[in-house]
């Protein structure tokens, strides 16, 4: 098959289209694809990138979806793409299918495409990438790696990406390995020149330089969370590798290697243990929290189930610690490389008995950084675990985000910990005496005072003086106080973010975490249907009264989330005593980042069903 001309008018778009890369995992495509996304960023155009990858190391299909949108609509768009770069023969048929009518397919034309792949409504952009590499390079590894760089070079010509931007990116990427700069730029040139010489460039979809990024950064949430833990003062980490949380720890470790070495001795101001399992990982964090160090662990899916017993201990024995949960699709092993928000209930009520855990729901890398640092203050103030509820999409994909900020005047809040001097002034110390009437008692650290303040920490019931008891009154008093502490927590955690119009819209949307990404776009689309909406973004559990007020203010309220059962909706109903009929559920559980299309369709369907029911009535 030769390069064809599409029978359909090619689609036209400037700074508003999706490019989908189809690769084989383990072929080095990730860094080339990342270079492509970053070149759009450096041209001042809002961009997002989603890695859709298998639970596999080598040889399986993997996709990288880049959305370019000058309105900052950066959630996954869904649907077909304007341009597909098809580099994987395994998935080629599906990849050709995934091109929008009028769109473009960039493929390796070293071997002729068989006729049954042909579509007459798209433009085939064949570049003999393998053949070029065969000719240019001797080393088999180079022949593979430079394929990726060559198609990025070609895309620069097709999409009108400034070549100097790519050159500077190569320079940044190989800082310290200067020998690699020239060959990479040469490979970019090979692709760029071939495209220019064989096709009319640029295409009818292309980018144009803008200045819309300002101080924003492009980074993944796990990097931000790991860095936030450094800034929050975490020193002890126990962990067990599990996708998609692993990079939280890896980033924490790599920042610590740079930023946490004692300048005088060269020794580490942190301790990191790769534990034997998730149970030990959280046990380490709890032991350290008990002993007054800021400690955390990170996990996903099955790790949450394994850690539940210890979460109950830390809740009941009142030990501060931070747990980062980068959620993935469950249950069981589920889809380990797909995203979901399906641990809301498992975490809110983690462990047997009456338990309630503090949850934080960041929605951007900037908030991952902020909440990660904040979580250590909250854990110390509340003397309880704080769980950061991230997800695979937020944690592992690059997002355009506000930059990280830190106030140098901020002082860590270590909560109610008694010093030896303070203990001297107390006649009789009681670990679980609610002195301040806020449910939070004063703790002491081991090794503080020769005579006073020692007590036995336990997961069994105890009285106010930490002595073991099975007296019902003591038990009830303690459980009631823990509930009071949870009310105090609702005042300390980040408040919900509310946007209301005047007069109020008819519809209220409630969402959290990455489900907020398609909201602005959904609002614009709903407006086209004559619907205006107000919004509330939940940022933490326990909930505040303002959430109840919001729900009561609207005729229709939708809770938008990424799981099957509408877990946040259930939690709202349970905790705020909302009538179930009051809350509509928009829940997507396909494991892919939520799209505005799904939300809008869900809302329209619900409203039209209600309208027809009323007519029938």
């Amino acid at each position, binding site marked *: 098959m030769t390069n064809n001309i599409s029978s359909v008018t090619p689609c036209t778009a400037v700074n508003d289209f999706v490019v989908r890369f189809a690769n084989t995992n383990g072929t080095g495509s990730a860094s080339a694809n990342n270079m492509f996304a970053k070149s759009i960023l450096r041209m001042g155009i809002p961009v997002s990138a989603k890695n859709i990858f298998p639970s596999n190391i080598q040889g399986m299909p993997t996709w990288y979806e880049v959305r370019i949108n000058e309105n900052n609509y950066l959630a996954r768009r869904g649907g077909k793409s304007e341009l597909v770069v098809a580099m994987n023969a395994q998935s080629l048929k599906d990849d050709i299918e995934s091109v929008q009518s009028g769109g473009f397919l960039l493929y390796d034309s070293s071997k002729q495409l068989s006729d049954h792949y042909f579509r007459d409504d798209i433009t085939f952009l064949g570049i003999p990438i393998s053949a070029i590499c065969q000719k240019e390079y001797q080393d088999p590894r180079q022949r593979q790696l430079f394929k990726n760089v060559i198609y990025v070079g070609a895309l620069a010509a097709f999409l009108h990406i400034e070549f100097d931007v790519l050159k500077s990116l190569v320079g940044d990427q190989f800082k310290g390995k200067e020998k690699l700069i020239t060959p990479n730029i040469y490979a970019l040139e090979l692709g760029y020149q071939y495209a220019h010489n064989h096709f009319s460039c640029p295409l009818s979809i292309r980018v144009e330089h803008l200045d819309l990024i300002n101080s924003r950064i492009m980074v993944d949430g796990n990097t931000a969370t790991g860095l936030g833990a450094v800034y929050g003062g975490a020193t002890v980490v126990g962990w067990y590798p599990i996708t998609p949380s692993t990079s939280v720890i890896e980033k924490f470790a790599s920042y610590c290697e740079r930023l946490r070495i004692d300048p005088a001795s060269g020794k580490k101001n942190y301790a990191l243990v790769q*534990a034997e399992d998730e149970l*030990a990982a959280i046990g380490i964090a709890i032991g*350290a929290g008990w002993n007054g*160090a800021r400690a955390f662990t990170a996990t996903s899916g099955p790790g949450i189930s394994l850690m539940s017993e210890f979460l109950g201990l830390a809740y009941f024995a009142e030990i501060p610690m931070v747990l980062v949960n980068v959620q993935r699709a469950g249950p069981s092993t589920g889809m380990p490389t797909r995203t979901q928000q399906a641990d809301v209930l498992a975490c809110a009520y983690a462990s047997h008995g009456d338990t309630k855990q503090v949850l934080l729901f960041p929605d951007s890398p900037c908030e991952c950084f902020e909440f990660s640092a904040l979580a250590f203050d909250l854990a110390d103030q509340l003397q309880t675990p704080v769980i950061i509820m991230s997800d695979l999409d937020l944690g592992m994909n690059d997002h355009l985000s506000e930059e990280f900020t830190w106030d140098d005047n901020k002082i*860590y809040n270590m909560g109610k910990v008694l010093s030896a001097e303070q203990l001297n002034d107390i006649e009789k110390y009681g670990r679980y005496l609610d002195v301040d009437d806020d449910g939070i008692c004063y703790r002491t650290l081991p090794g503080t005072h020769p005579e006073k303040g*020692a007590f*036995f920490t336990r997961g069994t019931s105890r009285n106010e003086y930490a002595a073991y008891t099975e007296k019902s009154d003591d038990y009830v008093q303690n459980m009631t106080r823990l509930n009071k502490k949870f009310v105090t927590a609702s005042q300390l955690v980040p408040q919900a973010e509310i946007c209301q119009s005047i007069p109020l819209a008819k519809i209220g949307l409630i969402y959290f975490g990455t489900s907020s990404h398609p909201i602005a776009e959904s609002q614009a689309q709903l407006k086209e249907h004559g619907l205006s909406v107000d919004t509330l973004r939940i940022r933490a559990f326990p909930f505040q009264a303002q959430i109840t007020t919001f729900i009561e203010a609207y005729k229709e309220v939708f809770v938008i989330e990424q799981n099957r059962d509408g877990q946040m909706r259930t939690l709202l109903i349970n905790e705020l005593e909302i009538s179930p009929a009051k809350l509509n559920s928009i829940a997507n559980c396909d494991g892919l980042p939520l799209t505005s299309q799904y939300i809008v369709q869900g809302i329209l369907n619900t409203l039209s069903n209600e309208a027809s029911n009323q007519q029938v009535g």
Partner: protein
Amino acid sequence: MSFEKSSFRHPRLAVNDLGLTYRDYEGSLSTLCAGCGHDAISSAVVQACYELAIEPYKVAKMSGIGCSSKSPTYFLNKAHGFNSVHGRMPSVATGANLANRELIYIGMSGDGDSASIGMGQFAHVVRRQLNMLYMVANNGVYGLTKGQLAATADKGTKNKAGELSLFTDIDLCVMALQLGATFVARSFSGDKKQLVPLIKAAISHRGFAFIDIVSPCVTFNNQPTSTRSYDYVHEHIKTAAVVDFVPVKKEITSEVAAGESEDICLHDGSLMRIHKLDKNYQTTNAVQAIVDIEEYKKKGEILTGLFYLDPTASHFHEINNTNDAPLNKLNQDALCPGSRILNGINQSFR
């Protein structure tokens, strides 16, 4: 359950180097069964800490769940304790130790806690070379749930209910030796003369010290069919080598019958004096120690004493190169890189 003891003190009680009496090291009244071996272990810990003149509040007592794990309530009242979850004391002790390397960590576990539910955690805390004393009170049964067989019960023995132990027993000392523990010993709760010096030596050891302590359960495993009964242990115990701990500038005379003795100098200049009852016995060969344990076992005997000691051992913090200052005492300046560095990091994401 725990009760406070009377605070009455005899005015002329002997004091140690810190001016503290033996009673300053005691805990609450035990609620274990009368005659429980575990109470003898608690009392040995009290005596060892008193004689070493350790400040009680500089100790952290770590335990899991079970009769054994209740024991830390019965010694060192002025020390903080953490009764964690079943089988997970090693990880909690790891976290605590990482947070503050200056305290002395005494872990108290049982055969169920360490050889069954907590087997993984036991293996890995040994491997991590945590600087702590890890004791297992080993009676071959689950006491708190009324007498089920434990994984350390000898194959072929019967519990009180007549249930036969069908499967191979787990020897935690052999495991500890194989996994690289740098101080491994076995003792008997009924032999304080041997146990107290071992605990003192183990606390003084810098690195992971393990003592498996045969500690008969008077209620559920003291019957004639048991190989963990007082009578059986008394009749079948054999001792290879025992230790005395000799602090710097202090000489003590051992009450152990003289065999060959060997002094090992510790980091701080104090001595570990090893008395060998069998003059050919070596305490520096972990593989040989495993062979000896197994050979005595074949003869139906319980080998006790110090099995292995590596005086040059290093521990987790040395391997990790952790700051000498405890991590929980580092101030914010040492921990938080500040806004200027953050600006540079932001720049790397543009």
